[in-house]
């Protein structure tokens, strides 16, 4: 079996939003829609203050509440662990938005572009009306992963078939791969570090693991 997961080493992340920007370019998301973003989080009171950076996106849960509530089955859990959305089936009811504890989903109803109502060339060439009024979210760059087998490449190892955010990360905070493969980068990282998954108590089984210290 294959189950793709992402590891994010919070010790490395500097909150630079390079992944946010890379994702926006790679997936041509409209202004205001961020399939992934890095939160800038402060806790404590002066002078005992902690500031941390927390990349957030779809967690591609093992038990995705979004898929459970979806009345159309547009949201599906795939065999390889990815949670996908069929834009041609989704009715845009937003129930999945309410179900997701990670605020990973967006719905926009009107076409907006970086500089107003008219798309610039890079937006026009990739504008997809099928994405209007339906739920969208991080897909783990599904098209790349789906192309891996045909190209004989391995997601997480070969950049061409690895999510754009992971490729872009300048601090090397992110890794991607098959957790069922004990030799994958993610498996090795998880074996040698302490990590957590967000809102694990909700029983969602997220596929994004946050590393916070060595083992």
């Amino acid at each position, binding site marked *: 079996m294959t189950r793709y997961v992402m590891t994010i080493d919070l010790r490395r992340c500097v909150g630079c939003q390079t992944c946010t920007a890379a994702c926006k370019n790679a997936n041509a998301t409209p202004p205001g829609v961020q399939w992934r973003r890095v939160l800038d989080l402060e806790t404590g009171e002066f002078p005992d203050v*902690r500031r941390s950076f*927390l990349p957030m996106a779809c967690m591609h849960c093992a038990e995705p*509440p979004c898929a*459970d*509530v979806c009345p159309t089955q547009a949201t599906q859990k795939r065999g390889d662990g990815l949670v996908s959305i069929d834009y041609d089936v989704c009715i845009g009811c*937003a129930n999945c938005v309410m179900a997701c504890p990670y605020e990973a989903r967006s719905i*926009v109803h009107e076409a907006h572009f970086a500089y107003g109502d008219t798309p610039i060339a890079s937006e026009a060439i990739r504008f997809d009306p099928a994405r*209007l009024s339906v739920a969208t979210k991080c897909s783990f760059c599904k098209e790349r992963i789906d192309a891996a087998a045909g190209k004989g490449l391995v997601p997480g190892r070969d950049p061409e078939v690895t999510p754009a955010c992971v490729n872009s990360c300048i601090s090397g905070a992110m890794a991607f791969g098959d957790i069922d493969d004990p030799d994958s980068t993610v498996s090795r990282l998880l074996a040698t570090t302490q990590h957590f998954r967000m809102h694990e108590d909700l029983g969602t089984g997220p596929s994004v693991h946050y590393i*916070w210290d*060595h083992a």
Partner: protein
Amino acid sequence: MKPNRNVLPGQPGPRLQQHWDWRAAANFICGGSGGGLVFFAALAGLAGVDVRAQMAAGLALAAAGLLCVWLEIGRPWRALNVFRHLRTSWMTREAAVALLLFGSGTLAVASSHPAAQALAGLCGLAFVYSQARILTADKGIPAWRHARCAPLMLLTGVAEGAGLIAATLPGELHAVAGMVIALAVLARLLLWRRYLDGLRESAAPVASLRALAAIERRFAVFGSIVPASLALLATAGALVGIAGTAIVLAVAGVLATAAGGLCKYTLIRRAAFTQGIALAHHPVRGGRRPAPPAAPGLSKA
């Protein structure tokens, strides 16, 4: 076209959901009241009362709610896709139950056949139940997913149904109707309090608790104690044969229903704060001691 919602995160704490507006709230308000009304209409029908009008009104309410939802969804012309996920989706189940409800309800209105009425009544209750379960399945909203949310939603539908039908019933049923209203709103008040206690215990977003607390007094006094008192007054009046109990029941019923609406509107539109984030461990950056976990915006359990 529908306006875009602001989907950009501002702060990492819980944020008010922006995707379900008054139309979604209307579905829960009308659907709950309608389902409850159909349920009590069926009971009254089985007791021999002519409830065609009430039954029809209940169906109309439920239909109005669904119409609101249809107006809200992004792709209304694909609405029939809603039936594709009976296995786990309570929204699909709501839609399926709605089909049964309208089928049996129409039959009941047309025929007044007890079987049709009974089926419609059950469907009305099931419809309310489905709506309640839609909320509890939404794990992203702590105020909804709480285990005590669904019973409250179900019971408020019942209270609203009882409230709406009471004054329309024949005089001989007013005593019972008053009792039912009083019991329903008081039980609802109890569940409401238990629900709020439960939210606090489960470290729900502070903002959710604040939004619910804002209506607590109105809900308790004008939505529960006053209608319960009026309903009991009507019961007493009916028992001793004083005229005008219908008006008192009507006032009690309207208050009970309005309180249900207020409760649901608040829940859907004002208290629906997201889970927010939880940083279970601060990263250890070099030689620093780790800080305690952080989950901004959540109340302390």
